[in-house]
């Protein structure tokens, strides 16, 4: 990157600086012996030209819209289009959630993102024994398309994109969305959105589990195939690192495991469905965490773009540039927030959001200050949304593309993270792939190690969290609490029972039989799911078919 003359000059100047450093330290020691990121990656006191001298400008850095896309996919950057302001949202009943969604849209949000409650996430109906006490508490309760249509009431499906955080039952919730569009006369090739639908990270981290890995990946392939053929504007997988990071992974682990998960899906779809990589890869999307260490996150996101581009072109022989792009949503880190002094969370979220923007995210959710304790209040979620809007409209960070490119520190850190991520990726390759690695507990144990180490570092004050182990206060400020009370569950059960009374049970039974046969024959389940949900089959009724055919996977409790 630099001429030998410059490097020689720099070497002399650096030596002078290092000598001065030694003198100062002799009298005024550093405040602590190690200076690390939140992931415990050691950072140097200073970065200079020598730290990036081996970078090849053309091959490694380049320009936006040019392989390997370090500086971004979009040639006009945020000037052309800001990232989507997409707030993850769901609470209580479909009707209540719909109200919150309209509030967010009226407040300037530009995309929808669905948070479901645990029964829905786990493929249970509200009246299941397993669902007792859980209805609506951390997201919206959806049992049938009757609820779903209330959820999207007044939402123009051909004008706005909707993300749904849903994994084992993804086929079913997506079927509800597709069916709802069809019922409204909106053709499937006009609707856009994302289903998270990433089971590998469930086994690794988020743990919404249902069927074993093999059939889970098969169902994902079904959605990719269906989307490729019929719903071209839909991102059928949101290959996620957010949850991996929340489980305690380091930034490098988040990067490596997410990208290796993506590679596993690519290989599976090619093998199982016989599709060419460029037929479906442009619709793969990603989802990363924006944690509190500012520069580590920016470097991580840049490294992610470069790794994926290389994997797609070199490893999978992709020829279409759109397959090389890494498009991602980001969420600020829930695990970085504190229940103590919760207003401090506004600052944390703002810094994290800024990192996501400087990392070039296509879409962003910012946590509300109260989400450590409950679903966000209107007031708190407004502040979170305004955070994004202030970044976009007031701070000037959108004026120029990838502003930190060329920084000795950022380029060195990006390189380092990419290198470490490839190490992990190759180790998982050697294990036979991600499914095999999960079976032997490899990513899970790496994450457990990192989580345990971090907690010990917090407890020993080696790492600081304000309000937890420094600047604590005795009297905590009270903040308003969103409560989902038990009447929500009662009313939802009544609604579900009413739907079941009114529907044509024989037709439902036939639809479920069709799904079962499709599963047994290895056919694509999506068309049958769409028919079933139109007939008011419930989430659990369809999931029980999957459980019956594919078996039930139980969390092995690896720690």
């Amino acid at each position, binding site marked *: 990157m630099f001429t030998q003359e410059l490097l020689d000059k720099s070497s002399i100047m650096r030596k002078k600086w290092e000598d001065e450093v030694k003198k100062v330290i002799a009298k005024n020691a550093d405040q602590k012996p190690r200076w690390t990121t939140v992931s415990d990656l050691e950072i140097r006191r200073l970065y200079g030209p020598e730290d990036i001298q081996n970078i090849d400008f053309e091959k490694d850095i380049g320009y936006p819209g040019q392989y390997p896309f370090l500086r971004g996919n979009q040639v006009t950057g945020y000037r052309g289009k800001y990232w989507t302001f997409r707030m993850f949202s769901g609470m209580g009943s479909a009707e209540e959630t719909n109200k919150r969604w309209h509030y967010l849209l009226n407040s300037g949000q530009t995309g929808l993102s669905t948070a479901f409650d*645990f*029964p829905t*996430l*786990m493929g*249970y109906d509200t009246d299941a*024994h*397993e*669902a*007792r*006490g*859980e209805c609506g*508490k*951390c997201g919206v309760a959806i049992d049938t398309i009757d609820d779903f249509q209330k959820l999207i009431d007044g939402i123009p499906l051909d004008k706005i994109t909707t993300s749904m955080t849903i994994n084992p039952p993804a086929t079913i919730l997506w079927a509800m969305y597709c069916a709802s569009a069809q019922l409204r006369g909106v053709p499937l090739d006009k609707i856009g959105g994302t289903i998270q639908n990433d089971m590998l990270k*469930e086994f690794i981290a*988020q*743990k*919404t*589990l249902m069927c074993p890995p093999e059939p889970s990946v098969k169902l994902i392939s079904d959605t990719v195939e269906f989307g490729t053929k019929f719903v071209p504007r839909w991102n059928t997988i949101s290959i996620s690192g957010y949850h991996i990071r*929340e*489980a*305690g992974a380091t930034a490098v682990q988040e990067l490596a495991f997410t990208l290796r998960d993506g590679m596993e899906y690519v290989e599976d779809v090619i093998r199982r469905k016989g599709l060419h990589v460029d037929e479906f890869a442009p619709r793969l999307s990603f989802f990363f965490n924006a944690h509190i260490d500012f520069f580590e996150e920016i470097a991580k996101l840049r490294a992610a773009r470069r790794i994926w581009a290389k994997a797609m072109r070199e490893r999978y022989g992709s020829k279409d540039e759109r397959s090389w792009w890494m498009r991602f949503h980001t969420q600020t880190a829930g*695990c970085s927030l*504190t*229940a*103590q002094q919760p207003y401090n969370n506004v600052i944390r979220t703002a810094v994290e959001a800024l990192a996501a923007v400087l990392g070039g995210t296509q879409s962003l959710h910012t946590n509300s200050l109260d989400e*450590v*304790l*409950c679903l966000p209040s209107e007031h708190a979620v407004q502040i979170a949304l305004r955070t994004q809007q202030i970044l976009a409209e007031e701070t000037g960070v959108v004026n120029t593309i990838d502003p930190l490119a060329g920084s000795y520190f950022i380029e060195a850190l990006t390189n380092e993270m990419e290198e470490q991520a490839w190490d992990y990726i190759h180790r998982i390759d050697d294990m036979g792939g991600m499914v095999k690695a999960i079976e032997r507990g490899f990513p899970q144990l790496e994450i*457990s190690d990192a*989580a*345990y180490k971090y*907690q*010990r570092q917090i*407890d020993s004050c080696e790492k600081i969290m304000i*309000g*937890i182990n420094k600047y604590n206060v005795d009297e905590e400020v009270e903040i308003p*609490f969103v409560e*989902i009370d038990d009447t929500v569950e009662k009313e939802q059960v009544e609604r579900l029972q009413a739907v079941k009374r009114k529907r044509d049970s024989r037709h439902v039974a036939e639809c479920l039989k069709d799904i079962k046969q499709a599963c047994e024959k290895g056919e694509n389940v999506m068309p049958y799911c769409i028919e079933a949900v139109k007939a008011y089959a419930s989430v659990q009724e369809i999931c029980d078919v999957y459980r019956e055919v594919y078996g039930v996977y*139980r*969390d*092995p*409790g*690896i*720690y």
Partner: protein
Amino acid sequence: MSSGKIRILLAKPGLDGHDRGAKVLARTFRDAGYEVIYTGCHQTPEMIAAAAIQEDVDVVGLSCLSGAHNYLYPAVVNLLREQGADDIEVIGGGIIPDKDMQGLYDAGLKALFTPGATLDSIVDWINANITPRK
């Protein structure tokens, strides 16, 4: 006076899959010299009570972050009592609003550890309050 190890069943009741805290505690308790049985996620109260009795533990630790604790935690306590195992103490952690804590204590939970609790403070409490029954 018993000189045996404390046996603890760590469980995640309900559908919540956020197991980072439970897993960190499993290691902490192992390092503290307890015999640890970790059930993994998605345990019903019935499964937890049955496991606690079968494994003959001294204490059950529950972890739930989904907001369903008001139903799930007392359910575990009640099932243990019904099956004559009320000498097994039940403690809990997770996302538990202050206003819910007294209700859980009234239902029979002996201790609740919420965000910010240090690992040592939990071990100290258990060492001070739980006697190995064997």
